[in-house]
């Protein structure tokens, strides 16, 4: 193997939370390091850094992905949303409130990834039942709560959505 002795870089242009960002980055840099180090967005966390824990979950072109399993170079020309972006959205705000109300976090390390996965579920699976919530967040590890409180919080937000609490923000037309 001829491993390069230098550090090859590439220019990326990524829409991050609605803002175009232009940077020169190492080819090997993954999206989470790009967001944290090059964009100053510390919301997405790195737990395992090999695609197991889900703490780095962000949305790429509207779908949740592992930030640690996408290169910044691959995301060039694409749209990224992090937990910071969605804060003003009614659904994410409701999820954050529910996480507090139901004690769905303790140390909070998994919370940004949980919130992004849960937001994706609330938007794409408005009819999800408790079992489907568990399946959807099965890729996000929490070492504190035992998950019940997280599932409670997500189900509470789904209930709110069903009674029209987010009617002011209709769901975007998304693929299932």
């Amino acid at each position, binding site marked *: 193997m001829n491993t390069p002795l230098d550090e*090859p870089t590439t220019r990326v242009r990524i829409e991050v939370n609605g803002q175009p960002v232009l940077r020169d980055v190492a080819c090997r840099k993954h999206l989470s390091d790009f967001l944290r180090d090059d964009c100053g967005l510390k919301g997405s966390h790195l737990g395992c850094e090999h695609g197991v824990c889900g703490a780095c979950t962000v949305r790429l072109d509207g779908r949740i992905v592992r930030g640690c399993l996408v290169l910044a170079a691959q995301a060039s020309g694409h749209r990224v949303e992090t937990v910071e972006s969605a804060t003003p959205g009614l659904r994410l705000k409701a999820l954050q409130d529910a996480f507090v109300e139901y004690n769905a976090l303790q140390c909070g390390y998994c919370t940004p990834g949980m919130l992004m996965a849960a937001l994706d579920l609330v938007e794409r699976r408005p009819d999800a039942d408790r079992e489907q919530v568990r399946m959807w967040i099965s890729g996000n590890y929490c070492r504190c709560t035992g998950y019940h409180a997280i599932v409670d919080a997500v189900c509470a937000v789904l209930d709110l959505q069903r009674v029209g609490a987010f009617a002011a923000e209709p769901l975007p037309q998304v693929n299932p």
Partner: protein
Amino acid sequence: MKSQAFDYVRAESAQHALALLAQHGDDARVLAGGQTLLASLGMRLAQPSLLVDIGDLTDLAGISVDHGVLRIGALTRHVEIEESPLVALHAPLLAQAAPHIAHRAIRNRGTFGGALAYADPAAEWPACVLALGGTLVLLGAGGERRVAADDFFRGLFSTARRDDELLLACELPLLAAGERQRFSELARRQGDYAIAGLAARAVVQGSQLSQLRLAWLSLGDRPLRSRAAEQVLQGGPLSAQRIADAEAALRAELSPFADLTHSAAAKLQMAATLLRRAVANLTRDPA
């Protein structure tokens, strides 16, 4: 989990990708969804000097029915297969298997072709394609060639694809009249790699199975068919004795390796259980 340094090129066409592969040989790796490759680079299990990103080759993505086959492009993401009406209609085995692949965020990104080309013996797609008797379409400098799934998987992470070839697509026969397909696997947790798994298809008439194909995952160095068990099960009407004989044949022809948490004997026991469940499931009349 930081990779060693590498260079990155986004291929502009399949020909561009092939030229880069020809030029860099074993120093280059094809990057599709990256859900396995980037993790293994992070763990430094591989240290290529160049990644050839084929993510922009949109011709390689998509699901269609053409000339009596279901064609799934190599860049089709797992989630697209999971949610495809064409797959549900013509290859329900894949729709059943998809939810077992890792987790939603991984399925949004990982690709069908990537999983087939990587040929992890614990992966779902290779066993499904083997069970369905699929055909892999490869592109090289000399043009396209087709390889039957039975000949494609050669060993641990090893396939008939040459280093300078790209996997373009997989073609699958359409679900036939009377055909049933069943996927099941046993894993410690949702989304974990299977301890044992079975992709099965058969034409069912009463209690008689024909054109049966049983493809196993996580039970060898590659996805494996159990031809002896297939043969026993198709020898006549199903009976308790025939199923017991098939189980004995299965135990004789599989020789799984132990993994970190399961002995070879435990895996074999699980395979036998999956076989019995699959037979019951295939012959149960759809509600």
